[in-house]
């Protein structure tokens, strides 16, 4: 007969949390992840309630836009709670805000500069001078291929930690950069895998290329949240790295591009870029002579700094300032290797 069941229960051993958990939390916040907690507080903040309602409405609209009815991808990316860029971008353009346009002349992109290769980045959080590695790594791979008789680029982003790996592959027309297909696979390393989800962009749809050389007729500006960041947070940086390669950067250059969503071209995000100097950067992948480029979304005073190599225009370091520190990505390895 068991007498002191309560005592036995209290004595059950529990493990300690993973030592990386703290860093992952700080990195997730810095990367734009937001979670609505069930606090159960009775006091109603109507402003917050409206924001939540708008957020939910935006998520529903996006889900409807992304997943055409009748396809077998109805589970949707929205169910993918760990795809941190998703939630961030979903709330980034809540309607009702001030309208913003690009600050500089639109850049003439040099698409011939985009090349096949693989780039591995390491995330770091720097607070009060202390550097903490956060997640195991992010990999961008660009390969040339053929899809439906068209020459395409496959832009594959892979990121993860010791617990999950997420892979997001965008197939774009090599000439126009118009998205053709998107596939997402996410799996927990210690659990049965999930089937990858994929969908094709309809040829007749309104989805534009990743970068717009011009904005649609009648465009009056985009409604943007003030916290929207250009680099590591609200615009998923791995998608933007290949297009940053094609900016016509030179000493003293400044210009803007409109970054479009991978699934629709409404309300494009203006992104201002300005070369502020040259610096040599030593990262695990090597030492590079770089342009130091400030990237900024006009709605947000915060700037992201990108160090872009002068030879191949690779982004070798990307840094976003936090309140008391910085979040940065550094190039760890590249294929083909650095010259």
């Amino acid at each position, binding site marked *: 007969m*068991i007498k002191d069941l309560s005592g036995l*229960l209290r004595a059950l051993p529990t493990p300690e*949390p993973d030592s990386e958990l*703290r860093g992952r939390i700080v990195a997730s916040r810095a990367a734009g992840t937001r*979670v609505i907690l069930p*606090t*159960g507080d009775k006091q109603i903040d109507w402003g*917050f309630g409206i924001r939540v309602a708008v957020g939910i409405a935006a998520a529903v609209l996006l889900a409807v836009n992304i997943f055409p009815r009748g396809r077998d991808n109805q589970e949707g990316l929205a169910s993918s709670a760990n795809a941190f860029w998703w939630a961030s971008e979903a709330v980034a353009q809540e309607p009702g805000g001030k309208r913003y346009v690009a600050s500089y002349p639109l850049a003439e992109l040099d698409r011939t500069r985009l090349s096949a290769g693989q780039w591995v980045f390491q995330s770091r959080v720097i607070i009060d001078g202390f550097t903490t590695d956060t997640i195991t790594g992010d990999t961008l791979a660009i390969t040339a291929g053929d899809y439906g008789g068209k020459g395409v680029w496959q832009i594959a982003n892979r990121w993860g930690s010791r617990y999950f790996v997420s892979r997001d592959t965008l197939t774009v027309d090599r000439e126009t950069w118009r998205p053709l297909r998107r596939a997402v696979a996410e799996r927990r390393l210690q659990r049965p895998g999930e089937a990858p989800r994929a969908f094709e962009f309809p040829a007749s749809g309104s989805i534009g290329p990743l970068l717009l050389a011009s904005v649609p007729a009648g465009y009056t500006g985009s409604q943007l949240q003030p916290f929207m960041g250009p680099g590591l947070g609200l615009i998923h940086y791995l998608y933007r790295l290949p297009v940053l390669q094609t900016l016509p950067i030179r000493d003293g250059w400044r210009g803007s591009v409109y970054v479009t969503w991978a699934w629709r071209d409404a309300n494009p995000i203006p992104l201002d870029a300005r070369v502020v100097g040259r610096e040599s950067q030593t990262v695990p992948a090597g030492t590079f002579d770089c342009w130091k480029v400030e990237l900024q979304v006009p709605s947000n005073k915060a700037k992201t700094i990108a160090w872009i190599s002068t030879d191949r225009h690779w982004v070798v370091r990307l840094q976003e300032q936090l309140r*008391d520190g910085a979040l940065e990505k550094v190039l760890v390895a590249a294929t083909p290797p650095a010259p």
Partner: protein
Amino acid sequence: MAIHPVSEHPQSADLVGGVRNGDPAALGLLYDAFGAGLFRLAYRLTGTREDAEDVVHDVFVGLPEALTRYEERGQFGAWLRRVTARVALMRQRKAHRRQEVGLDSAAGVASSAHGTSEDAALRAALDALPADQRAVVVLKEMEGYTHAEIATTLGISHVTSRVRLLRALRRMRRQLEEDT
């Protein structure tokens, strides 16, 4: 073994203000103060390390926005535990709907890795409970909540809380005695 309440951090008021303002350093310090205790609570409620870490991750990531609705009337630690318990239980319900089984539960990893065969049997009996009964057992017997606190946290009456506890303990005793 004593219950592990989440003690109040001496500067928690300053940290709460910092986190509310989006200060990542304050968030890190708040994690240092409360993270381990909340992880234990989440682990006891979910039964797996991965789920517990996900719960704690979500709680701290969502904290800056949640704190805008927090009124400093009671103990901050108690509020934080209540939120963590809710997140863990929501996660449990979703996992139950998806019929997920954590590795720890499926293979008895946690039991064998962290204790004796008696511990393993006790954990198996706990894991075998329906989610609603398990939550009451964890909160009352392992975390030291009162039935009134459990009622608030789970959104049930304190009578229901008592009934669930009695049923759960009876069920666990029966299973443990059958095992021995």
